[in-house]
């Protein structure tokens, strides 16, 4: 049985803020900061948007592209995020209701820093492969938090993508997936705390780079493949710099990662990061294209995927929902005051 992606959909809120505007507030060379991180701007949610609405829009875009799929045939909905609107009360059940997949299904919210979305894809693959469900939905979406003034504030953004995993009319077959996980506390947010903390430079070598390269190398070995076998590669993109460097370390060329590298224009969408990067690739992909994907979640782990685009993508109704290029067109730029309002950083009266 070929298990893979039957459909996908992406959504990014229309608002943006530039690093120089953030730097202006904190007395920092924001422009230089953005340059170093390779982030020109980041997305910001609307005042009435959160992970539920972002995940729903992505999932509805996904469903619009497969008019033949009955949402009642969806047996699982998983939403990966580190900014679920409720600490207790699932995002997934709201999204499932909004795409009319309820009630004969399972749903759960996932959290593994930035890789909960890809973990959901793996979970759905398992259920589909085992014949337990006909379709599973895996969504990675975030309205990420960065403490005011912290380096993360220049990157933490909002967006998400949704994947319909199944074994019928698969537009991109997932040939193989594997993960690499250790207990590495490079980034965390304690229960009840509004902002995450991180280990600074510790988030690099022993965390991001070690886990991505380990998972990627193991997958290449297991698949008997080399980087040049792939048309596209997508790596977790907390900024533009890390994925560019890790691609080089693994032997991928800049043109392989270019299509799926969205961070420069939208920032780090956390759980949405790799799912959105892959969506950007699928927007362009042709039959036979092979895609290499490795996510990263602090804490820490990486999920790697070896994907091949199938002929089914030719009859796939991609045009029924906007491509990322269209989603990202015509942004509205915010100053820091409006940004603070959008992010709920202003203390209001009772």
């Amino acid at each position: 049985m070929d298990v893979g992606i039957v459909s996908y959909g992406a959504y990014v809120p229309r608002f943006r803020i530039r690093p120089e505007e953030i730097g202006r507030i904190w007395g920092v060379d924001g422009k230089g900061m953005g340059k170093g991180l390779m982030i020109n701007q980041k997305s910001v949610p609307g005042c009435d948007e959160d992970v539920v609405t972002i995940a729903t829009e992505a999932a509805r875009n996904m469903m619009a592209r497969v008019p033949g799929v009955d949402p009642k045939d969806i047996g699982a909905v998983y939403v990966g995020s580190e900014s679920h609107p409720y600490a207790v009360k699932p995002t997934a059940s709201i999204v499932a209701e909004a795409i009319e997949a309820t009630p004969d299904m399972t749903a759960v919210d996932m959290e593994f820093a930035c890789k909960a979305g890809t973990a959901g894809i793996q979970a759905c693959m398992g259920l589909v492969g085992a014949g337990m469900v006909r379709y599973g939905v895996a969504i990675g979406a975030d309205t990420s938090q960065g403490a005011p003034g912290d380096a993360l504030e220049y990157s933490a953004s909002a967006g998400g993508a949704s994947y319909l995993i199944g074994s019928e009319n698969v537009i991109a077959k997932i040939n193989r997936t594997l993960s690499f996980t250790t207990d590495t506390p490079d980034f965390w947010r304690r229960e009840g705390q509004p902002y995450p903390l991180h280990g600074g430079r510790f988030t690099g070598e022993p965390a991001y780079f070690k886990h991505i390269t380990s998972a990627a190398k193991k997958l290449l070995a297991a698949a008997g493949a080399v980087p040049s076998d792939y048309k596209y590669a997508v790596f977790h993109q907390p900024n533009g710099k890390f994925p560019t460097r890790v691609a080089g370390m693994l032997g991928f060329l800049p043109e392989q990662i270019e299509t799926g590298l969205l961070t420069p224009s939208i920032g780090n969408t956390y759980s949405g990061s790799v799912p959105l990067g892959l969506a950007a690739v699928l927007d362009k992909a042709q039959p036979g294209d092979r895609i290499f994907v490795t996510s990263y979640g602090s804490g820490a782990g990486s999920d790697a995927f070896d994907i091949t685009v199938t002929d089914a993508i030719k009859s796939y109704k991609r045009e029924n929902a906007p491509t990322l290029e269209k989603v990202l067109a015509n942004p509205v730029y915010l100053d820091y005051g409006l940004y603070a309002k959008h992010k709920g950083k202003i203390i209001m009266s009772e």
Partner: protein
Amino acid sequence: MSSVAREWREIPGRYNLEGSKCECCGKVYFPKRDFCPKCRRESLGKVSKHKIDRKGDIFSFSIIHEAPECNDFLKPYAVVFVKTKDDVLIAGQLVDADLDKIQIGMPVRAVLRKLDSDGASGVIHYGFKFVPDV
């Protein structure tokens, strides 16, 4: 805190524009009705669930400057009457639109957004709002 149940029971309409259709005369209603005002008693038991088309055109609009407290963060914001593709008129907010470019006849589609919440600890109410359909 407002009633959780009161909002919960409206979810089909709020999320997915579920209204009603009279099987006697074929008229479509939103929000749902258990009874067709046109066919009256004849329609009893013959009114079925019917989803309203998510797309339509602006029939009329206003920009709200004096907003209810729950929308303090959004003001000024647009509200619209939308004539959907199935010829039903619905009221809602129009978001993600340039306020000075809104016009009668402009195509829009319904998306899911936060409508309100019962304070910082209470339940969040989600429902449809419209965005420009470009």
